[in-house]
Protein backbone atom coordinates (compact mmCIF):
# COMPACT_ATOMS: atom_id res chain seq x y z
CA UNK A 1 0.00 0.00 0.00
CA UNK A 2 1.15 3.51 -0.71
CA UNK A 3 1.09 6.42 1.70
CA UNK A 4 1.72 10.04 0.76
CA UNK A 5 4.01 11.86 3.15
CA UNK A 6 5.52 15.33 3.23
CA UNK A 7 8.90 15.18 4.92
CA UNK A 8 11.31 18.12 5.09
CA UNK A 9 9.30 19.93 2.44
CA UNK A 10 9.31 17.04 -0.03
CA UNK A 11 6.05 15.22 -0.80
CA UNK A 12 6.50 11.60 -1.79
CA UNK A 13 4.78 8.25 -2.06
CA UNK A 14 5.99 5.57 0.27
CA UNK A 15 5.22 1.90 -0.16
CA UNK A 16 4.26 1.16 3.44
CA UNK A 17 1.35 -0.15 5.45
CA UNK A 18 -0.69 2.81 6.81
CA UNK A 19 -0.33 1.43 10.31
CA UNK A 20 3.47 1.58 10.19
CA UNK A 21 5.02 3.90 12.75
CA UNK A 22 6.47 7.03 11.17
CA UNK A 23 9.91 6.20 12.59
CA UNK A 24 10.19 3.02 10.53
CA UNK A 25 9.12 4.81 7.37
CA UNK A 26 11.66 7.56 7.97
CA UNK A 27 14.52 5.18 8.64
CA UNK A 28 13.73 2.17 6.43
CA UNK A 29 11.97 3.75 3.47
CA UNK A 30 13.29 7.29 3.27
CA UNK A 31 16.73 6.57 4.73
CA UNK A 32 16.48 9.49 7.08
CA UNK A 33 18.36 7.99 10.00
CA UNK A 34 18.48 11.04 12.25
CA UNK A 35 15.48 10.03 14.35
CA UNK A 36 16.52 7.14 16.59
CA UNK A 37 14.78 4.03 17.81
CA UNK A 38 15.06 4.06 21.59
CA UNK A 39 12.26 2.39 23.52
CA UNK A 40 9.65 2.00 20.79
CA UNK A 41 6.82 2.86 23.19
CA UNK A 42 6.94 6.64 23.37
CA UNK A 43 8.78 6.91 26.65
CA UNK A 44 12.30 8.10 25.82
CA UNK A 45 12.06 10.78 23.15
CA UNK A 46 14.92 9.56 20.91
CA UNK A 47 12.50 9.34 17.96
CA UNK A 48 11.13 12.90 18.32
CA UNK A 49 10.36 14.73 15.06
CA UNK A 50 8.12 17.71 14.31
CA UNK A 51 4.67 17.53 12.74
CA UNK A 52 3.33 20.95 11.75
CA UNK A 53 5.72 22.51 14.25
CA UNK A 54 4.81 20.29 17.21
CA UNK A 55 7.18 17.76 18.72
CA UNK A 56 5.85 14.26 18.09
CA UNK A 57 7.11 10.80 19.04
CA UNK A 58 7.53 9.10 15.68
CA UNK A 59 7.76 5.57 17.11
CA UNK A 60 4.15 5.64 18.28
CA UNK A 61 2.71 7.70 15.43
CA UNK A 62 1.26 5.62 12.58
CA UNK A 63 1.71 7.23 9.18
CA UNK A 64 -2.03 7.03 8.50
CA UNK A 65 -2.39 10.08 10.75
CA UNK A 66 -0.02 12.19 8.68
CA UNK A 67 -1.71 12.79 5.38
CA UNK A 68 -1.47 16.48 4.51
CA UNK A 69 0.77 17.17 7.51
CA UNK A 70 4.31 18.57 7.35
CA UNK A 71 6.89 16.32 8.96
CA UNK A 72 10.30 17.79 9.82
CA UNK A 73 13.25 15.67 10.90
CA UNK A 74 16.70 16.64 12.09
CA UNK A 75 17.87 16.42 8.45
CA UNK A 76 15.44 19.25 7.66
CA UNK A 77 17.04 21.69 10.09
CA UNK A 78 20.30 22.18 8.21
CA UNK A 79 23.18 20.48 6.46
CA UNK A 80 26.71 19.55 7.45
CA UNK A 81 27.94 22.67 5.62
CA UNK A 82 25.17 24.95 6.84
CA UNK A 83 23.87 23.70 10.19
CA UNK A 84 20.71 25.29 11.54
CA UNK A 85 20.92 27.45 14.67
CA UNK A 86 19.98 24.59 16.96
CA UNK A 87 22.52 22.26 15.37
CA UNK A 88 25.26 24.91 15.51
CA UNK A 89 24.49 25.58 19.16
CA UNK A 90 24.77 21.88 20.05
CA UNK A 91 28.13 21.75 18.24
CA UNK A 92 29.35 24.91 19.93
CA UNK A 93 28.39 23.64 23.37
CA UNK A 94 29.66 20.11 22.59
CA UNK A 95 26.32 18.94 23.98
CA UNK A 96 26.51 15.34 22.75
CA UNK A 97 28.30 12.49 24.43
CA UNK A 98 27.10 9.24 22.86
CA UNK A 99 24.70 11.35 20.82
CA UNK A 100 21.83 8.90 20.62
CA UNK A 101 19.28 11.20 22.27
CA UNK A 102 20.51 14.35 20.58
CA UNK A 103 18.35 14.40 17.41
CA UNK A 104 15.25 14.01 19.56
CA UNK A 105 16.48 16.67 21.97
CA UNK A 106 17.13 19.06 19.07
CA UNK A 107 13.74 18.45 17.50
CA UNK A 108 11.85 19.07 20.74
CA UNK A 109 13.97 22.15 21.41
CA UNK A 110 13.34 23.36 17.85
CA UNK A 111 9.58 23.01 18.35
CA UNK A 112 9.83 24.94 21.60
CA UNK A 113 11.97 27.75 20.18
CA UNK A 114 9.85 28.11 17.06
CA UNK A 115 6.82 28.65 19.26
CA UNK A 116 8.69 30.73 21.85
CA UNK A 117 12.19 31.94 20.89
CA UNK A 118 12.60 33.62 24.27
CA UNK A 119 11.93 30.46 26.29
CA UNK A 120 13.87 30.69 29.56
CA UNK A 121 15.68 27.90 31.33
CA UNK A 122 12.58 26.81 33.26
CA UNK A 123 10.57 26.57 30.05
CA UNK A 124 13.37 24.61 28.35
CA UNK A 125 13.64 22.17 31.25
CA UNK A 126 9.88 21.65 31.26
CA UNK A 127 9.70 21.17 27.50
CA UNK A 128 12.61 18.71 27.29
CA UNK A 129 11.33 16.62 30.15
CA UNK A 130 9.95 13.79 27.98
CA UNK A 131 13.38 13.30 26.37
CA UNK A 132 15.84 11.12 28.25
CA UNK A 133 19.64 11.27 28.11
CA UNK A 134 21.54 8.49 29.82
CA UNK A 135 25.02 9.95 29.44
CA UNK A 136 24.12 12.91 31.59
CA UNK A 137 24.88 15.83 29.30
CA UNK A 138 21.73 17.62 30.40
CA UNK A 139 23.47 20.77 31.53
CA UNK A 140 25.20 21.18 28.18
CA UNK A 141 21.98 20.41 26.34
CA UNK A 142 20.17 23.15 28.26
CA UNK A 143 23.03 25.55 27.57
CA UNK A 144 22.90 24.67 23.88
CA UNK A 145 19.17 25.27 23.67
CA UNK A 146 19.53 28.63 25.39
CA UNK A 147 22.32 29.50 22.97
CA UNK A 148 20.15 28.47 20.03
CA UNK A 149 17.30 30.62 21.33
CA UNK A 150 19.66 33.58 21.47
CA UNK A 151 20.84 32.90 17.90
CA UNK A 152 17.27 32.60 16.66
CA UNK A 153 16.29 35.87 18.31
CA UNK A 154 19.22 37.58 16.59
CA UNK A 155 18.36 35.94 13.27
CA UNK A 156 14.76 37.04 13.44
CA UNK A 157 15.85 40.58 14.30
CA UNK A 158 18.01 40.48 11.21
CA UNK A 159 15.12 39.08 9.15
CA UNK A 160 16.78 35.68 8.78
CA UNK A 161 15.15 32.29 9.03
CA UNK A 162 14.70 30.53 12.33
Amino acid at each position, binding site marked *: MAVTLTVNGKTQQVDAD*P*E*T*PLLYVLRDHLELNGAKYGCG*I*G*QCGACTVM*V*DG*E*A*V*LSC*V*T*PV*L*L*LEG*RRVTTIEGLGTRERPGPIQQAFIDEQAAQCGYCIPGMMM*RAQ*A*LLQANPSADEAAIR*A*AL*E*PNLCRCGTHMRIIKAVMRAGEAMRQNSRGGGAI
Partner: protein
Amino acid sequence: MRALRIIAGLATIVVVAAAAFVAYAWRSAIDPVEPPVQANIDRALVARGADLAAIGNCNVCHTAPGGQPFAGGLGIPTPFGTIYSTNITPDPENGIGHWSEAAFIRAMREGVDREGRHLYPAFPYDHYTLVSNEDNRAIYAFLMTRKAVSARIPANELSFPFNIRMLLAGWKALYFREGPFQPDPNRSAELNRGYYLTEGLSHCGACHTPRNRLGAEKKGEYLAGAEVENWTVYPINANSPAPVPWNADSLAIYLRHGWHEQHGASRGSMAPVTANLGSVPEEDVKAIAAYVADVMGTPNQERISRGEAALAAARKESETPLAVRTAANGNGVGEAIFVSACQGCHDGRRPVPFGGLNLHLSSAVNAANAQNIINVTLFGLPAARGEPSAIMPAYRGVLNADQLVALLDYMRKRFSDKPAWTDTRERVVATMNGQREVPIYRMDGTTQAPPETSMRTAPWP
Protein backbone atom coordinates in the same frame (compact mmCIF):
# COMPACT_ATOMS: atom_id res chain seq x y z
CA MET B 1 -50.14 59.80 53.09
CA ARG B 2 -51.34 56.24 53.18
CA ALA B 3 -48.86 55.28 50.45
CA LEU B 4 -46.05 56.96 52.33
CA ARG B 5 -46.94 55.08 55.47
CA ILE B 6 -46.83 51.79 53.58
CA ILE B 7 -43.45 52.64 52.10
CA ALA B 8 -42.14 53.70 55.48
CA GLY B 9 -43.48 50.48 56.98
CA LEU B 10 -41.86 48.34 54.28
CA ALA B 11 -38.60 50.23 54.64
CA THR B 12 -38.64 49.56 58.38
CA ILE B 13 -39.23 45.85 57.79
CA VAL B 14 -36.33 45.71 55.32
CA VAL B 15 -34.01 47.52 57.71
CA VAL B 16 -35.01 45.35 60.64
CA ALA B 17 -34.65 42.19 58.56
CA ALA B 18 -31.24 43.30 57.33
CA ALA B 19 -30.18 44.13 60.87
CA ALA B 20 -31.45 40.78 62.07
CA PHE B 21 -29.53 39.02 59.29
CA VAL B 22 -26.35 40.90 60.11
CA ALA B 23 -26.78 40.00 63.76
CA TYR B 24 -27.35 36.39 62.74
CA ALA B 25 -24.41 36.31 60.35
CA TRP B 26 -22.02 38.23 62.58
CA ARG B 27 -19.01 36.35 63.90
CA SER B 28 -16.51 38.03 66.17
CA ALA B 29 -12.79 38.09 65.55
CA ILE B 30 -10.53 35.88 67.62
CA ASP B 31 -7.61 37.85 69.02
CA PRO B 32 -4.33 37.52 67.14
CA VAL B 33 -1.55 35.62 68.86
CA GLU B 34 2.17 35.60 68.29
CA PRO B 35 3.12 32.64 66.06
CA PRO B 36 3.95 29.68 68.33
CA VAL B 37 7.64 28.91 68.78
CA GLN B 38 8.19 25.95 66.47
CA ALA B 39 10.72 24.26 68.73
CA ASN B 40 8.12 24.04 71.50
CA ILE B 41 5.63 22.07 69.41
CA ASP B 42 5.43 18.35 70.18
CA ARG B 43 7.09 16.43 67.31
CA ALA B 44 4.76 13.46 67.64
CA LEU B 45 1.78 15.77 67.25
CA VAL B 46 3.40 17.29 64.14
CA ALA B 47 3.99 13.84 62.64
CA ARG B 48 0.35 12.90 63.17
CA GLY B 49 -0.70 16.24 61.72
CA ALA B 50 1.40 15.55 58.62
CA ASP B 51 -0.56 12.35 57.98
CA LEU B 52 -3.87 14.04 58.64
CA ALA B 53 -2.99 16.96 56.35
CA ALA B 54 -2.13 14.43 53.63
CA ILE B 55 -5.46 12.65 54.14
CA GLY B 56 -7.11 16.07 53.94
CA ASN B 57 -5.24 16.99 50.72
CA CYS B 58 -4.54 20.47 52.11
CA ASN B 59 -1.48 20.81 49.87
CA VAL B 60 -3.43 20.20 46.67
CA CYS B 61 -5.46 23.42 46.85
CA HIS B 62 -3.20 25.47 49.10
CA THR B 63 -0.23 25.35 46.71
CA ALA B 64 -0.02 27.35 43.49
CA PRO B 65 1.60 25.82 40.39
CA GLY B 66 5.34 26.10 40.98
CA GLY B 67 4.71 27.82 44.30
CA GLN B 68 5.79 27.01 47.84
CA PRO B 69 3.82 24.29 49.65
CA PHE B 70 0.82 25.59 51.60
CA ALA B 71 1.49 29.19 50.51
CA GLY B 72 -1.82 29.28 48.61
CA GLY B 73 -2.59 31.29 45.48
CA LEU B 74 -4.11 28.54 43.38
CA GLY B 75 -7.05 29.91 41.40
CA ILE B 76 -10.03 27.63 41.87
CA PRO B 77 -12.59 28.09 39.11
CA THR B 78 -16.21 28.04 40.29
CA PRO B 79 -19.45 28.93 38.50
CA PHE B 80 -19.43 32.14 40.56
CA GLY B 81 -15.92 33.27 39.69
CA THR B 82 -12.38 32.43 40.74
CA ILE B 83 -11.49 31.86 44.37
CA TYR B 84 -7.82 31.91 45.34
CA SER B 85 -6.67 29.47 47.98
CA THR B 86 -5.19 31.10 51.07
CA ASN B 87 -1.69 31.00 52.46
CA ILE B 88 -1.79 28.58 55.40
CA THR B 89 1.89 28.80 56.30
CA PRO B 90 2.72 30.46 59.65
CA ASP B 91 3.66 33.73 57.97
CA PRO B 92 2.15 36.46 60.19
CA GLU B 93 1.42 38.89 57.35
CA ASN B 94 0.07 36.65 54.61
CA GLY B 95 -0.50 33.31 56.30
CA ILE B 96 -2.08 32.11 59.52
CA GLY B 97 0.80 33.00 61.83
CA HIS B 98 -1.48 35.09 64.05
CA TRP B 99 -4.12 32.38 64.29
CA SER B 100 -4.53 30.68 67.63
CA GLU B 101 -5.41 27.02 67.81
CA ALA B 102 -8.95 28.07 68.69
CA ALA B 103 -9.17 30.22 65.55
CA PHE B 104 -7.93 27.30 63.42
CA ILE B 105 -10.44 24.91 64.97
CA ARG B 106 -13.26 27.41 64.40
CA ALA B 107 -12.30 27.71 60.72
CA MET B 108 -12.37 23.94 60.32
CA ARG B 109 -15.56 23.46 62.33
CA GLU B 110 -17.59 26.54 61.29
CA GLY B 111 -16.00 27.95 58.13
CA VAL B 112 -15.15 31.32 59.71
CA ASP B 113 -11.68 32.87 59.60
CA ARG B 114 -9.80 34.42 62.53
CA GLU B 115 -11.14 37.88 61.73
CA GLY B 116 -14.70 36.54 61.84
CA ARG B 117 -15.37 36.47 58.09
CA HIS B 118 -17.39 33.63 56.61
CA LEU B 119 -15.30 31.41 54.35
CA TYR B 120 -16.39 30.21 50.95
CA PRO B 121 -17.23 26.51 50.83
CA ALA B 122 -14.49 26.02 48.23
CA PHE B 123 -12.75 25.40 51.55
CA PRO B 124 -14.67 22.20 52.32
CA TYR B 125 -15.70 22.99 55.89
CA ASP B 126 -18.97 21.22 55.20
CA HIS B 127 -16.71 18.14 55.50
CA TYR B 128 -13.99 19.41 57.81
CA THR B 129 -16.63 20.23 60.42
CA LEU B 130 -16.60 16.52 61.27
CA VAL B 131 -12.92 16.57 62.23
CA SER B 132 -12.24 16.06 65.93
CA ASN B 133 -10.56 18.73 68.03
CA GLU B 134 -7.72 16.31 68.66
CA ASP B 135 -7.06 15.88 64.93
CA ASN B 136 -7.43 19.61 64.33
CA ARG B 137 -4.80 20.29 66.98
CA ALA B 138 -2.41 17.92 65.19
CA ILE B 139 -3.03 19.58 61.81
CA TYR B 140 -2.51 23.00 63.43
CA ALA B 141 0.79 21.80 64.90
CA PHE B 142 1.84 20.51 61.48
CA LEU B 143 0.96 23.72 59.65
CA MET B 144 2.58 25.93 62.29
CA THR B 145 5.85 24.05 61.83
CA ARG B 146 5.94 24.58 58.05
CA LYS B 147 8.22 27.19 56.56
CA ALA B 148 6.58 30.61 56.76
CA VAL B 149 6.18 31.90 53.22
CA SER B 150 5.58 35.56 52.64
CA ALA B 151 3.37 35.17 49.59
CA ARG B 152 0.43 37.47 49.06
CA ILE B 153 -2.70 35.91 47.61
CA PRO B 154 -4.62 37.56 44.78
CA ALA B 155 -8.08 38.89 45.64
CA ASN B 156 -10.99 36.62 44.71
CA GLU B 157 -12.69 37.39 41.42
CA LEU B 158 -16.34 36.86 42.26
CA SER B 159 -19.35 38.56 40.77
CA PHE B 160 -22.04 40.36 42.81
CA PRO B 161 -23.68 39.17 45.06
CA PHE B 162 -21.30 36.25 45.58
CA ASN B 163 -18.55 38.63 46.66
CA ILE B 164 -20.48 39.49 49.87
CA ARG B 165 -19.17 37.08 52.46
CA MET B 166 -21.92 37.75 54.95
CA LEU B 167 -24.42 36.12 52.61
CA LEU B 168 -22.59 32.86 53.22
CA ALA B 169 -24.42 32.76 56.54
CA GLY B 170 -27.55 32.17 54.47
CA TRP B 171 -25.80 29.46 52.46
CA LYS B 172 -24.75 27.80 55.69
CA ALA B 173 -28.30 27.97 57.07
CA LEU B 174 -29.47 26.14 53.97
CA TYR B 175 -26.75 23.57 53.47
CA PHE B 176 -24.33 23.40 56.36
CA ARG B 177 -24.68 21.21 59.45
CA GLU B 178 -22.00 21.69 62.05
CA GLY B 179 -20.06 18.68 63.40
CA PRO B 180 -18.14 17.09 64.94
CA PHE B 181 -18.50 13.48 63.90
CA GLN B 182 -20.54 11.15 66.09
CA PRO B 183 -19.79 7.45 65.59
CA ASP B 184 -22.71 5.22 64.66
CA PRO B 185 -22.94 2.37 67.19
CA ASN B 186 -24.44 0.12 64.49
CA ARG B 187 -21.32 0.40 62.32
CA SER B 188 -18.08 -1.48 62.85
CA ALA B 189 -15.11 0.48 64.18
CA GLU B 190 -13.48 0.32 60.74
CA LEU B 191 -16.57 1.64 58.96
CA ASN B 192 -16.93 4.43 61.50
CA ARG B 193 -13.30 5.34 60.96
CA GLY B 194 -13.85 5.12 57.20
CA TYR B 195 -16.91 7.36 57.37
CA TYR B 196 -15.05 9.85 59.52
CA LEU B 197 -12.14 10.07 57.07
CA THR B 198 -14.11 9.85 53.81
CA GLU B 199 -16.77 12.35 54.81
CA GLY B 200 -14.51 14.46 56.97
CA LEU B 201 -10.88 15.19 56.16
CA SER B 202 -10.71 13.39 52.81
CA HIS B 203 -13.82 15.27 51.63
CA CYS B 204 -14.27 12.78 48.79
CA GLY B 205 -17.76 14.11 48.14
CA ALA B 206 -16.38 17.55 47.32
CA CYS B 207 -15.51 16.15 43.90
CA HIS B 208 -17.48 12.89 43.71
CA THR B 209 -20.90 14.32 44.65
CA PRO B 210 -22.52 16.66 42.12
CA ARG B 211 -23.36 20.20 43.27
CA ASN B 212 -26.52 22.26 42.95
CA ARG B 213 -26.77 25.75 41.50
CA LEU B 214 -25.58 27.30 44.74
CA GLY B 215 -22.56 25.06 44.88
CA ALA B 216 -23.81 22.75 47.63
CA GLU B 217 -23.46 19.00 47.31
CA LYS B 218 -26.71 17.31 46.34
CA LYS B 219 -27.41 15.02 49.25
CA GLY B 220 -29.76 12.93 47.13
CA GLU B 221 -26.96 12.11 44.68
CA TYR B 222 -24.38 11.00 47.16
CA LEU B 223 -21.01 10.17 45.52
CA ALA B 224 -22.85 9.95 42.19
CA GLY B 225 -20.04 11.46 40.11
CA ALA B 226 -19.51 14.92 38.67
CA GLU B 227 -17.13 16.92 36.50
CA VAL B 228 -14.29 18.86 38.09
CA GLU B 229 -11.62 20.91 36.28
CA ASN B 230 -12.74 19.27 33.03
CA TRP B 231 -11.99 15.82 34.36
CA THR B 232 -14.91 13.45 34.71
CA VAL B 233 -15.24 12.27 38.29
CA TYR B 234 -16.68 8.78 38.36
CA PRO B 235 -19.60 7.73 40.52
CA ILE B 236 -18.30 5.80 43.52
CA ASN B 237 -21.66 4.54 44.65
CA ALA B 238 -23.70 1.67 43.20
CA ASN B 239 -23.34 3.32 39.76
CA SER B 240 -19.58 2.93 39.54
CA PRO B 241 -18.69 2.44 35.85
CA ALA B 242 -15.82 0.05 36.63
CA PRO B 243 -16.27 -3.14 34.60
CA VAL B 244 -14.81 -5.25 37.41
CA PRO B 245 -16.68 -4.24 40.57
CA TRP B 246 -14.49 -2.55 43.16
CA ASN B 247 -14.14 -4.07 46.60
CA ALA B 248 -12.43 -2.93 49.80
CA ASP B 249 -9.18 -4.68 48.88
CA SER B 250 -8.87 -3.32 45.36
CA LEU B 251 -9.83 0.19 46.51
CA ALA B 252 -7.20 0.07 49.25
CA ILE B 253 -4.50 -0.92 46.77
CA TYR B 254 -5.60 1.72 44.28
CA LEU B 255 -5.83 4.51 46.85
CA ARG B 256 -2.46 3.67 48.34
CA HIS B 257 -0.45 3.04 45.16
CA GLY B 258 -2.30 5.05 42.55
CA TRP B 259 -3.14 2.08 40.35
CA HIS B 260 -4.78 -1.31 40.34
CA GLU B 261 -4.22 -4.03 37.76
CA GLN B 262 -7.94 -4.37 37.05
CA HIS B 263 -8.72 -0.65 37.05
CA GLY B 264 -5.71 1.25 35.76
CA ALA B 265 -3.83 4.30 37.00
CA SER B 266 -4.99 7.33 38.92
CA ARG B 267 -4.77 10.53 36.88
CA GLY B 268 -6.35 13.95 36.65
CA SER B 269 -7.45 15.47 39.91
CA MET B 270 -7.28 12.04 41.56
CA ALA B 271 -3.51 11.74 41.08
CA PRO B 272 -2.59 14.09 43.95
CA VAL B 273 -5.07 12.28 46.18
CA THR B 274 -3.55 8.85 45.67
CA ALA B 275 -0.09 10.41 45.93
CA ASN B 276 -1.02 11.79 49.35
CA LEU B 277 -2.51 8.51 50.50
CA GLY B 278 0.75 6.73 49.66
CA SER B 279 2.40 8.06 52.80
CA VAL B 280 -0.30 7.82 55.48
CA PRO B 281 -1.01 4.93 57.89
CA GLU B 282 -2.26 1.90 56.00
CA GLU B 283 -5.19 1.35 58.39
CA ASP B 284 -6.58 4.74 57.46
CA VAL B 285 -6.47 3.94 53.73
CA LYS B 286 -8.10 0.59 54.42
CA ALA B 287 -10.82 2.29 56.45
CA ILE B 288 -11.59 4.70 53.61
CA ALA B 289 -11.64 1.78 51.16
CA ALA B 290 -13.94 -0.26 53.41
CA TYR B 291 -16.37 2.64 53.74
CA VAL B 292 -16.44 3.44 50.01
CA ALA B 293 -16.88 -0.25 49.17
CA ASP B 294 -19.79 -0.27 51.61
CA VAL B 295 -21.36 2.70 49.80
CA MET B 296 -20.91 0.91 46.48
CA GLY B 297 -22.63 -2.11 47.95
CA THR B 298 -22.28 -5.78 47.18
CA PRO B 299 -22.44 -6.26 43.41
CA ASN B 300 -25.33 -8.34 42.10
CA GLN B 301 -24.80 -11.45 40.00
CA GLU B 302 -25.13 -9.52 36.74
CA ARG B 303 -22.37 -7.07 37.75
CA ILE B 304 -20.15 -9.94 38.85
CA SER B 305 -20.68 -11.76 35.54
CA ARG B 306 -19.94 -8.59 33.57
CA GLY B 307 -16.69 -8.18 35.50
CA GLU B 308 -15.70 -11.77 34.85
CA ALA B 309 -16.46 -11.39 31.15
CA ALA B 310 -14.34 -8.23 30.99
CA LEU B 311 -11.44 -9.98 32.71
CA ALA B 312 -11.73 -12.95 30.37
CA ALA B 313 -11.77 -10.70 27.29
CA ALA B 314 -8.75 -8.79 28.56
CA ARG B 315 -6.86 -11.98 29.37
CA LYS B 316 -7.56 -13.43 25.94
CA GLU B 317 -6.24 -10.32 24.19
CA SER B 318 -3.12 -10.27 26.31
CA GLU B 319 -2.36 -13.83 25.20
CA THR B 320 -3.03 -13.34 21.49
CA PRO B 321 -0.04 -12.33 19.39
CA LEU B 322 -0.48 -8.73 18.26
CA ALA B 323 0.07 -9.36 14.55
CA VAL B 324 -2.90 -11.72 14.25
CA ARG B 325 -5.28 -9.11 15.51
CA THR B 326 -3.80 -6.39 13.37
CA ALA B 327 -4.24 -8.45 10.24
CA ALA B 328 -7.78 -9.36 11.23
CA ASN B 329 -8.91 -5.76 11.17
CA GLY B 330 -11.12 -4.23 8.56
CA ASN B 331 -11.65 -0.62 7.60
CA GLY B 332 -12.57 2.34 9.72
CA VAL B 333 -10.35 5.22 10.73
CA GLY B 334 -11.02 4.79 14.44
CA GLU B 335 -10.12 1.14 14.38
CA ALA B 336 -7.02 1.75 12.29
CA ILE B 337 -5.81 4.40 14.74
CA PHE B 338 -6.53 2.24 17.74
CA VAL B 339 -4.76 -0.79 16.33
CA SER B 340 -1.71 1.14 15.19
CA ALA B 341 -1.30 3.77 17.90
CA CYS B 342 -3.03 2.51 21.07
CA GLN B 343 -3.13 -1.25 21.10
CA GLY B 344 0.61 -1.75 21.32
CA CYS B 345 0.50 -0.63 24.94
CA HIS B 346 -3.18 -1.18 25.76
CA ASP B 347 -3.46 -4.85 24.85
CA GLY B 348 -2.58 -5.77 28.40
CA ARG B 349 0.50 -7.84 27.60
CA ARG B 350 2.54 -5.78 30.00
CA PRO B 351 0.86 -5.34 33.36
CA VAL B 352 -0.42 -2.04 34.74
CA PRO B 353 0.97 0.46 35.66
CA PHE B 354 3.96 0.23 33.27
CA GLY B 355 1.85 -1.25 30.53
CA GLY B 356 -1.44 0.31 29.52
CA LEU B 357 -4.74 -0.98 30.88
CA ASN B 358 -6.63 -3.31 28.59
CA LEU B 359 -9.67 -1.19 27.86
CA HIS B 360 -12.14 -3.99 28.52
CA LEU B 361 -11.30 -3.11 32.13
CA SER B 362 -11.54 0.66 31.73
CA SER B 363 -13.93 2.83 33.73
CA ALA B 364 -13.25 5.65 31.27
CA VAL B 365 -14.80 3.93 28.24
CA ASN B 366 -17.84 3.09 30.38
CA ALA B 367 -18.18 6.61 31.81
CA ALA B 368 -20.91 9.11 30.99
CA ASN B 369 -18.70 10.95 28.51
CA ALA B 370 -15.33 10.69 26.77
CA GLN B 371 -13.64 13.58 28.57
CA ASN B 372 -11.03 11.61 30.52
CA ILE B 373 -9.90 9.68 27.45
CA ILE B 374 -9.78 12.93 25.49
CA ASN B 375 -7.57 14.45 28.18
CA VAL B 376 -5.07 11.60 28.44
CA THR B 377 -4.96 11.07 24.67
CA LEU B 378 -4.20 14.72 23.94
CA PHE B 379 -1.95 15.53 26.89
CA GLY B 380 -0.67 12.13 27.99
CA LEU B 381 0.32 11.11 31.46
CA PRO B 382 3.57 12.89 32.33
CA ALA B 383 6.15 10.85 34.20
CA ALA B 384 6.28 11.24 37.94
CA ARG B 385 9.48 12.79 39.20
CA GLY B 386 11.83 10.74 41.28
CA GLU B 387 9.84 7.51 41.14
CA PRO B 388 8.57 5.05 38.56
CA SER B 389 5.04 5.67 37.39
CA ALA B 390 2.54 5.03 34.67
CA ILE B 391 3.27 7.18 31.62
CA MET B 392 1.51 7.83 28.37
CA PRO B 393 2.73 9.82 25.40
CA ALA B 394 0.68 12.84 24.37
CA TYR B 395 -1.00 12.75 20.96
CA ARG B 396 -1.93 16.43 20.80
CA GLY B 397 0.59 17.04 18.05
CA VAL B 398 -0.75 14.44 15.62
CA LEU B 399 -4.45 13.77 16.10
CA ASN B 400 -6.93 16.16 14.56
CA ALA B 401 -10.49 16.47 15.84
CA ASP B 402 -11.99 14.11 13.25
CA GLN B 403 -9.42 11.42 13.97
CA LEU B 404 -9.86 11.69 17.72
CA VAL B 405 -13.66 11.55 17.48
CA ALA B 406 -13.43 8.47 15.25
CA LEU B 407 -11.04 6.82 17.68
CA LEU B 408 -13.29 7.55 20.69
CA ASP B 409 -16.40 6.28 18.94
CA TYR B 410 -14.57 3.09 18.06
CA MET B 411 -13.30 2.58 21.61
CA ARG B 412 -16.77 3.07 23.09
CA LYS B 413 -18.26 0.62 20.62
CA ARG B 414 -15.60 -2.02 21.04
CA PHE B 415 -14.99 -1.89 24.79
CA SER B 416 -18.34 -0.86 26.30
CA ASP B 417 -21.87 -2.20 26.00
CA LYS B 418 -23.26 1.26 26.81
CA PRO B 419 -24.84 3.48 24.11
CA ALA B 420 -22.63 5.76 22.01
CA TRP B 421 -21.59 9.08 23.54
CA THR B 422 -23.47 12.04 22.12
CA ASP B 423 -21.27 15.03 22.98
CA THR B 424 -17.86 13.71 21.99
CA ARG B 425 -17.16 16.17 19.17
CA GLU B 426 -18.06 19.23 21.25
CA ARG B 427 -15.77 18.00 24.01
CA VAL B 428 -12.91 17.19 21.63
CA VAL B 429 -13.06 20.56 19.90
CA ALA B 430 -13.37 22.54 23.14
CA THR B 431 -10.48 20.64 24.71
CA MET B 432 -8.27 21.04 21.67
CA ASN B 433 -8.86 24.78 21.36
CA GLY B 434 -8.33 25.34 25.08
CA GLN B 435 -11.89 26.43 25.86
CA ARG B 436 -11.97 23.49 28.23
CA GLU B 437 -8.83 24.01 30.25
CA VAL B 438 -7.40 20.76 31.55
CA PRO B 439 -4.89 20.75 34.40
CA ILE B 440 -2.43 17.87 34.06
CA TYR B 441 -1.30 16.20 37.23
CA ARG B 442 1.69 14.02 37.93
CA MET B 443 1.44 10.79 39.85
CA ASP B 444 4.28 11.56 42.22
CA GLY B 445 3.97 12.19 45.93
CA THR B 446 3.18 15.53 47.42
CA THR B 447 5.89 14.98 50.00
CA GLN B 448 8.48 15.45 47.25
CA ALA B 449 10.42 18.51 46.13
CA PRO B 450 8.47 21.74 46.72
CA PRO B 451 7.59 23.00 43.22
CA GLU B 452 5.98 19.67 42.41
CA THR B 453 3.85 19.58 45.50
CA SER B 454 0.83 20.88 43.69
CA MET B 455 1.47 18.64 40.69
CA ARG B 456 -0.37 21.08 38.53
CA THR B 457 1.71 21.68 35.42
CA ALA B 458 1.14 23.11 32.04
CA PRO B 459 -0.19 20.61 29.49
CA TRP B 460 2.66 18.45 28.40
CA PRO B 461 4.10 19.59 25.09
